[in-house]
């Protein structure tokens, strides 16, 4: 049957397949389909840059136009991965530059990117279009200058929330006068002031500019200048949203917003002065995505603004919204898909705002499309969680962070097992779950039994014993990423479920009870896993086998152990014993 279609017909059919999953399935049908598919795959997604080598990728897929790479484990976002751990993109760029002269897109997340890498990107690809750097680090504004200067057809430059060494704002002026191709520019993470003139001219000459996210240094008074030159904007991130209260600034702003008929997304609002929020009222009814999570505005200004956005689908906001604000949200934004409530004062034990579980319950009741939640609060009850679960069986992502570790149900003082159990039992499509509060092994039993579509699970300060971990690893069929910190999980569950780990992208365990010996055994038993131990205090001198490791990162790979590990990371494999003894010898003990 397969032979009756000529290659170009199959290739044409495959060109409609955009999801990796589909292309992977297609390539398993037979050898000729594998061959045809690999020659025409243009987009590659690598969820763990150490799971595969660039050589292997290039050998299989000779004509790639877009590459997406992720580096450090997710917990690196919270400072749990020491500096120097890895995730260097440079070797990848070198290989990609050699193999794919027509590469157009590179998207990186949690990787270390140097100016050298950026310069190499800017000079190696003839038709380079898209650079997205999310939560990356290691580069300076000099690297950005190379990109601006050399990428003639640049369409997208998104710096995400990367850590950029900001030498000066001058880099933006390196965009040549004949660069008119920009569609998306996000410089919101930068501190330095860019030349406003250069920015204004750039915006004016790019008629296809749809997304513009400014940095804090762009003053509010100048925003109208940009909006007038880009009335076609779909997404705007304001700079500092503060100025002295002057009626001409206000009226200029209001008039400029009036002209932006396509605006759907708003963000920024640094240092917001609430008096200026009404200048945006003309666009509110069209807004579907609103990121106020850096806006320190409080009620009633805050809730009044949000309630104007009746078509809101995504809201990111600080807990200044409070329960009352969330109740208003539930009443006015019936299209809400995603809610994220961030803490304004996460390190204070005392609540500084009146935001409790009630707010989340109200939104779960009032917003029938709510499927994605990230919620920081200081109290929770099983009753509330059960209500949320019953209200929203369509929940896909549920991340709850109760600020105090191991906090029980504040009404009954019991663990929150029942509540989270209800979530996994009712929300059958749940793909991502983060838990907090007081939790025993029982909740893991519920998860293993019910969470069959769960792909990513984050656990902290929870559980009583290895059976908790065992329930998860043996029951969650779709599990891809598991990250655990400060839980009493140890060797037994890990070793008993060794083969499971090959079906997952990665496992992170820090401050648990996994011993060096178990890690060694796991590494020796499973050659297609990299079992990496992170021990900043060096190796134990006495009785090493039974000593707990500080942090463990296990991931499947076809690239073998990595070669760029710093001194405090060890790969546990069949060679580890000899390597470890050499290390202790060198130390002269």
């Amino acid at each position, binding site marked *: 049957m397969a032979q009756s279609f000529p290659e170009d017909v199959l290739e044409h059919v495959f060109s409609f397949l955009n999801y990796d999953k589909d292309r992977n399935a297609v390539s398993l049908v037979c050898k000729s389909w594998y061959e045809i598919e690999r020659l025409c795959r243009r987009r590659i997604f690598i969820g763990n840059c150490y799971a595969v080598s660039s050589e292997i990728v290039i050998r299989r897929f000779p004509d790639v136009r877009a590459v997406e790479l992720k580096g450090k484990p997710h917990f690196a976002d919270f400072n749990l991965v020491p500096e120097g751990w890895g995730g260097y993109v440079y070797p990848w760029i070198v290989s990609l530059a050699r193999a794919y002269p027509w590469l157009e897109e590179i998207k990186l997340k949690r990787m270390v990117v140097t100016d050298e890498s950026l310069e190499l990107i800017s000079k190696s690809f003839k038709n380079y279009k898209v650079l997205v750097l999310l939560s990356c680090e290691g580069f300076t504004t000099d690297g950005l200058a190379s990109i601006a200067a050399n990428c003639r057809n640049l369409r997208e430059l998104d710096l995400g929330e990367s850590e950029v060494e900001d030498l000066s704002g001058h880099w933006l002026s390196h965009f040549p006068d004949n660069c008119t191709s920009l569609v998306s520019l996000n410089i919101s993470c930068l501190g330095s002031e860019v030349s406003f003139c250069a920015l204004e001219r750039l915006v004016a000459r790019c008629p296809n500019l749809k997304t513009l996210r400014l940095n804090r240094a762009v003053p509010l008074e100048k925003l109208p200048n940009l909006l007038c030159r880009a009335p076609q904007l779909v997404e705007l991130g304001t700079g500092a949203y503060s100025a002295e209260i002057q009626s001409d600034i206000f009226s200029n702003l209001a008039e400029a917003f009036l002209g932006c008929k396509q605006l759907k997304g708003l963000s920024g609002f640094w240092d917001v002065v609430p008096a200026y929020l009404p200048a945006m009222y003309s666009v509110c009814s069209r807004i579907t995505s609103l990121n106020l999570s850096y806006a320190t505005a409080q009620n009633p200004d805050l809730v009044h603004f949000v309630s104007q956005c009746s078509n809101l689908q995504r809201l990111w906001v600080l807990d200044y919204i409070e329960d009352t604000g969330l109740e208003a949200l539930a009443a006015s934004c019936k299209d809400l898909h995603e809610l994220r409530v961030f803490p304004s004062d996460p390190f204070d034990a005392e609540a500084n705002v009146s935001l409790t579980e009630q707010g989340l319950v109200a939104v779960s009741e009032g917003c029938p499309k709510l499927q994605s939640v990230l919620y920081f609060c200081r109290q929770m009850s099983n009753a509330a969680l059960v209500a949320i679960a019953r209200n929203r069986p369509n929940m896909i992502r549920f991340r709850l962070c109760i600020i105090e570790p191991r906090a029980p149900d504040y009404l009954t003082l019991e663990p929150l097992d029942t509540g989270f159990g209800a979530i996994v039992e009712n929300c059958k499509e749940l793909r991502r779950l983060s838990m907090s509060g007081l939790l025993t092994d029982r909740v893991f039993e519920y998860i293993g039994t019910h969470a069959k579509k769960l792909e990513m699970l984050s656990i902290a300060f929870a559980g009583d014993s290895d059976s908790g971990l065992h329930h998860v690893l043996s029951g969650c069929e779709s599990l891809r990423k598991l990250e655990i910190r400060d839980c009493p999980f140890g060797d037994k569950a890990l070793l008993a479920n060794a083969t499971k780990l090959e079906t997952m992208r990665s496992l992170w365990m820090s401050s648990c009870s996994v011993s060096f010996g178990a890690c060694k055994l796991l590494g020796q038993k499973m050659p297609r896993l990299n079992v990496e131990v992170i*021990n900043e205090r060096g190796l134990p001198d006495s009785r090493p086998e039974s000593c707990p490791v500080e942090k463990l990162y296990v991931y499947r790979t076809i690239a073998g152990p990595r070669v760029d590990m710093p001194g405090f990371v060890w790969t546990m494999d069949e060679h580890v014993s000899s390597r470890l003894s050499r290390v202790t010898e060198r130390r002269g003990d």
Partner: protein
Amino acid sequence: MAMISEEHSKEKLGFEETELRLGLPGGGGIVNGDFGKNTNANGKRGYPETVNLKLNLSLKETEKGENLQKEKNLISCSNNAVKPPTKAQVVGWPPVRSFRKNVMAVQKSNSEEGVGGTATFVKVSMDGAPYLRKVDLNMYKSYQDLYGALGKMFNSFTMGKCDSQGMMDFMNESKLKDLLNGSDFVPTYEDKDGDWMLVGDVPWEMFVGSCKRLRIMKGTEAIGLAPRAMEKCKNRS
């Protein structure tokens, strides 16, 4: 320089902050975070133990008894749970991303008077250590808090003589030189002006506002900073 002393006199932080006292190292309160209040009759307090793999430099106790906490020791492989650290000490919890923490810290300090908008996360390096770390200065309430955390991150680092607030006595040149010759490592920092200073020369809040990065230097190398530290100190008083 005159302006700095003006600023200082305006800052009513309470005289205890700026008073330079003689006193043996404190710090036993690492885990319960109870610094300023906890002195007994002669002002001496216990010393936190930091265990060092290579040099076995632990056990600089001056006082036994109250508040002497043993650090959880990987090497001894004890399975006893360590006393849970105060919230300020739990790394990465609550799970708020560094970018967000920095932005909120800057916005907070911009809305308060006094301290300027410096990022809270600073890089920490130690001479001879193969890795850098980052610390969020807002997590700590005093120099002792910070030294304790640094001691946990870098094995060879134990803080030398300083007073109960963690501030150093810079006015006495010979004492300073003794300190620097006697310590293996001394913490230094780069301030807003780009100068490298000895840690402990200003009240804690001021330090948080002006510190851009930390470097734990060999005591003998830090001698070069001593005259400058004293200069700045003299000009402030």
